[in-house]
């Protein structure tokens, strides 16, 4: 039932696309018909191009995402809880946060080369801040009354963080992780502009270069569907981790 409801809007768009294409209201070159896209998708599947590209990008996204989590998450906790870290780090991180990664490509090539490292760093740059800032927000607004409970029990810092602050700030952290994962996918094109030879981003760039908008759209759809699937998995996991939160939103139809 939920699945059907969630398909309503996509189906409206799809119908619109079909009808528009049939009536020729869209420029075929910029928005090919669903049939043409379907044919392109099928061809890419059959000649074994699509799946390896998906695999490459999936790996990149996941590796980039997990590396980012490994940095952004502890740093977020540190900055959220420690005034000194805050004073030291907020300014440089804020500076970096506003820089378009595309402007940094020459420097990234200089420092990271043209291998996997520079592609990952584009992904990391895009993923870092949503995770970082949401972690900071979560831990810094965690109910201090609960923290006090741990303090009077003589808990160590790590115990207070692990047993009180993190569970209490889970909703914010989860939002950060979901946003971050989304931005990992979004960074694919930028990342795979850097000397990639495969991947969905590469496939899209290549297709755009050669004006194959049908392939571009196959790529877009692949990324969107994969991203959505991963987000669903994410929500499923977070429900398991946080059984006390019955639903994705607790105030739904409050």
């Amino acid at each position: 039932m939920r699945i059907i409801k969630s398909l309503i809007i996509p189906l409206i768009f799809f119908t619109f696309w079909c009808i528009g294409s049939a009536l020729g209201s869209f420029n075929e070159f910029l928005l090919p018909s669903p049939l043409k896209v379907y044919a392109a998708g099928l061809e890419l599947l059959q000649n074994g191009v699509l799946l390896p590209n998906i695999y490459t990008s999936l790996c990149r996204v996941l590796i980039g995402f997990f590396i980012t989590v490994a940095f952004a998450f502890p740093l977020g906790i540190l900055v959220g809880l420690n005034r000194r870290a805050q004073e030291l780090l907020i300014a440089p991180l804020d500076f970096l946060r506003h820089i378009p990664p595309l402007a940094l490509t020459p420097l990234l090539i200089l420092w990271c080369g043209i291998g996997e490292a520079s592609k990952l760093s584009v992904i990391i740059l895009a993923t870092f801040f949503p995770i970082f800032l949401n972690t900071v927000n979560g831990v810094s607004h965690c109910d201090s009354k609960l923290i006090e409970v741990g303090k009077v029990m003589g808990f160590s810092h790590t115990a207070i963080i692990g047993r009180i602050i993190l569970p209490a700030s889970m909703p914010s952290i989860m939002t950060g992780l979901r946003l971050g994962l989304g931005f990992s996918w979004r960074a694919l094109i930028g990342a795979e502009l850097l000397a990639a030879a495969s991947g969905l981003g590469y496939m899209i760039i290549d297709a755009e270069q050669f004006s194959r908008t049908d392939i571009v759209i196959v790529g877009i759809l692949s990324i969107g569907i994969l991203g959505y699937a991963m987000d669903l998995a994410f929500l499923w996991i977070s429900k398991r981790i946080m059984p006390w939160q019955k639903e994705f939103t607790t105030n739904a139809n409050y």
Partner: protein
Amino acid sequence: ALSEDVKEIGITYVKFPLNVPAIIAYKKNMFENEFKQDGITITHPELTSGPKQTQAMAAGSVQFASVLGASSAIIAKSNGVDLKIIAVFARAPKAFNIMALDKSINSVKDLKNKIVAGPKGTVLHQMLYAALLKEGLTPSDIKFVNMSIPQARAALMSGNVSAALVAGPSVPVMETGGCHVIANGEGLIQGLIVVAVDNNFLKEHPDLVKRYLDVNEKSAKFMKDNPEETFEIVAKETNLTIENVKKMFPWYDYSSAITGKDIKDLEVTQEFLLDNGMMKNKINIKDIISNINQ
């Protein structure tokens, strides 16, 4: 249709690599002056890449792709964009270079088993293939990585690749930085850059298209008559030094007539694209040439 119907003409403006006549026409408001009398406003969207120019043309946002790589024109046509080449913008085989940093790499032969970076599917890519073939190598003898010119430049200068495909202003800058040219397009390719127009526009307003070409002639004439002023304008617009502008200027042949040699080159380009799987549907080259100017 009458030209009175036309309220606005979009002409893409591309400075890179060193499109002197386009810069002159733009800076001197030549198109505006020409079409002012008809009450037509001119827009100059800066769409630097070929695909974006043809996309904008397909969307009806521009009528003229004033500086379009030959391969972009062919690919667009092959994928269904109805455009016509109305003139040559420039031929510049010398502007397209293969450069290396490592002193031991002095010729294309030395590139065997090396990494070469550059923009895939462009004139530069085509030149690399031609150069390899000429030296008895095949494309699989090197490792090609796809990158934009600025990225390829960075990759070469940071030692991540052995050679980079670069065009225009990057060349003198990189030479100052210790790189050297190991080959250019001379004798390999024409380096053809064309002027293309939306075919519908051409059919409906051949007069306006003709006048567009007249303006191009005018800017070419200004360029010949006032070289010093030209260099100054170009240097200012591109943030290049006057010396570098002067150095590169002779690489370009800006005469606009479409010659048989040019058509031949278009054919060669199409073969290159087809052979390397960058294009599916072969087109008839004659179909994209309009000889409105002849």
